[in-house]
């Protein structure tokens, strides 16, 4: 069945299905009950499933993740909501040092099927700590899987696949796209959780990014087309592990690649993908892989977010540079 749904509604529908499918699935977080979360992603779920399945927690992120670990040890499958990207750090130890490492520590005796949902990224004009992109902290951590949907259809399916994963999954939701509508096919899963996806065909340059950046890349590709440059666009979807197959296939055809991300560029996911593409597709490259990133500064006050965040023009500037080689 196919229908049009906003991104946040698609997540809500995916979570509802996860709750229906497995009664060990629990949602935990701040304000996710009667309020439905500050972005309304869990709207109506507590009324439907009760306050023992959809749990309003005390205001303590480490407590949320730490107790989720204990619940997972007991056989539950908790889905934790972190209210905003910048609020995840109080839970950093529990995520990176406990959750990520427990299966390893226990030599496989216990699995840790915990999902950490994090609304991330800018474009919403919010105050400090509400617009960050902390993906790299988690992709750097062995034991975690990290994904980020860019469309309502992916939101619907990827959240269900994250919940059914036997491993911990950090799930980055592009909050600026929560209200974006798109087709959702609720009967047929398009792709596995950890597959990247070619979203636009092109012949001259491969553009790669994830989450909200995919829309920006598509805008840049349309502008480049009008200037005579054909851009292929790949949605990473899975940030750890990265599905390099479609990226390398594309780069072997185009010979050029630009990676775009909201996160600061230094030691970022884009750095890793660029290095890997250079290792594995060196002879196909006509130009160095270029990165377009947020600046290596804290996320600035919202009135400057347009300066900080990569926009289509900054991506086109990189496209022009790579084409000039």
């Amino acid at each position, binding site marked *: 069945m196919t229908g049009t749904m906003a991104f946040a509604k698609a997540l809500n529908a995916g979570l509802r299905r996860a709750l229906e499918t497995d009664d060990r699935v629990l949602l935990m977080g701040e304000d996710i009950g009667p309020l439905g979360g500050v972005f309304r992603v869990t709207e109506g779920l507590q009324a439907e499933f009760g306050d023992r399945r959809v749990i309003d927690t005390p205001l303590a992120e480490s407590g949320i993740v*730490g*107790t*989720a670990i204990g619940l997972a*040890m*007991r056989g539950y499958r908790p889905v934790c909501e972190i209210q905003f990207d910048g609020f995840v750090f109080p839970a950093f130890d529990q995520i990176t040092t406990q959750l990520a*490492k427990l*299966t390893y520590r226990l*030599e496989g005796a216990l699995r840790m099927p915990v999902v950490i949902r994090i609304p991330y990224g800018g474009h919403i004009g919010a105050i400090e700590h509400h617009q960050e992109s902390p993906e790299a902290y988690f992709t750097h951590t062995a034991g975690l899987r990290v994904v980020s949907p860019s469309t309502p259809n992916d939101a619907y399916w990827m959240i269900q696949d994250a919940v059914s994963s*036997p491993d911990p999954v950090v799930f980055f939701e592009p909050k600026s796209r929560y209200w974006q509508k798109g087709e959702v096919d609720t009967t047929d899963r398009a792709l596995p959780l950890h597959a990247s996806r070619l979203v636009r065909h092109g012949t001259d340059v491969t553009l790669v990014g994830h989450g909200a950046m995919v829309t920006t890349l598509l805008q840049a590709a349309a502008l480049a087309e009008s200037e005579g440059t054909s851009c292929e666009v790949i949605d990473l979807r899975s940030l750890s*592990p990265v599905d390099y197959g479609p990226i390398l296939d594309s780069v072997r055809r185009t010979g050029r690649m630009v990676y775009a991300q909201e996160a600061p560029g230094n030691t970022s996911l884009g750095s890793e993908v660029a290095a890997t593409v250079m290792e594995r597709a060196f002879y196909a490259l006509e130009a160095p892989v270029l990165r377009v990133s947020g600046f290596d500064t804290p996320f600035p006050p919202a009135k400057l977010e347009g300066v900080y965040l990569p926009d289509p023009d900054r991506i086109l500037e990189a496209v022009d540079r790579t084409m000039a080689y």
Partner: protein
Amino acid sequence: MIPADDPSLVRILGADGTLAPTPAAEPYLAAAEAVTREELERFYRDMVVIRAFDRQATNLQRQGQLALWPPSLGQEAAQVGSARALRPQDHVFPSYREHVVARIRGVDLVDVIRMMRGLTHGGWDPTDPANGNTHVYTLVLGSQTLHATGYAMGVAFDGASGTGDSERDEAVIVYYGDGASSQGDVHESMVFAASYRTPQVFFLQNNQWAISVPVATQSPAPLYKRGEGYGMPSVQIDGNDVLASYVVTRRALDEARSGAGPRAIEAVTYRVGAHTTSDDPTKYRTSAEEEAWARRDPIARLRTYIEARGATPAFFADVEAEAAAVAEDARARTVALGGLPDEQVFRNVYADPHPLVEAEARWLADYEASYEGGQA
């Protein structure tokens, strides 16, 4: 220095091995009187055996057989009493020094040693019934209190507590120390436990020292009072009195399992040994303090007490023989422990296959095969 008794301290067995209950012990006296001589002898055996093992493990570290050993010397009564208070269906979240708790629950002590020898980060399978629902040690202090609380939330959600059947209702105990009591995770776990009324006991061993920092730096107020601040009934006990540890923990667990909500216990004890074999207590504490605490030794006082109750020389000889045998067995099996295959690096990072880990494992295998003899 030995802290002056808090007026609400529960002590039943005095340092001289005679019954010397404090006023706060009154509600527990009937339970204490019901403890049989056989049970007391069991406690004594547990304490003597673990002390011998602990000394052996310390020696093994000194001889290069272990990377590190955190001795439990001096804390045997707090640990034995609380562990013997558990029922079979209960769940244990230790910190990293609860060797006798692990042993009482069925964990092979050599599994603890394997961790300290660098052969595993865990050591045993907490889901194996042989290990008595004992979770593995946690080294980032306080983290395990949240795991215990989440686990206890799950127990409550499952309806596995609060039915009124203490033979079946499950409870959770979590161990932590005076140092860890300052960690945010401990506070958050108490918030969650109190809010969700978890069937759980917080068991704090206040051994006076967080490595080199005295407990006064963690808190000017007695630590058991923190539990009260979260709405939990909280009791301070003489942690060197195994009888107090047993009866107070037993009651707290049974109240928690009945659905009455979490409980907190502070066991006032002393870390007689070093924090670990890497530590040097002479740099920060006095021998006068150590000698004062030695006079409160938990084993000596129980020995005096059970001797007065008729424990025989044959019993004590048997305990000494068992302690020596356990220690010798630990040594023999430790030095016989093998190594690990190189591919162990890559095992169990994820439950599902992971392309990056698999590629690196293949690379290492190829790299090693490229050397003559197959070893890089």
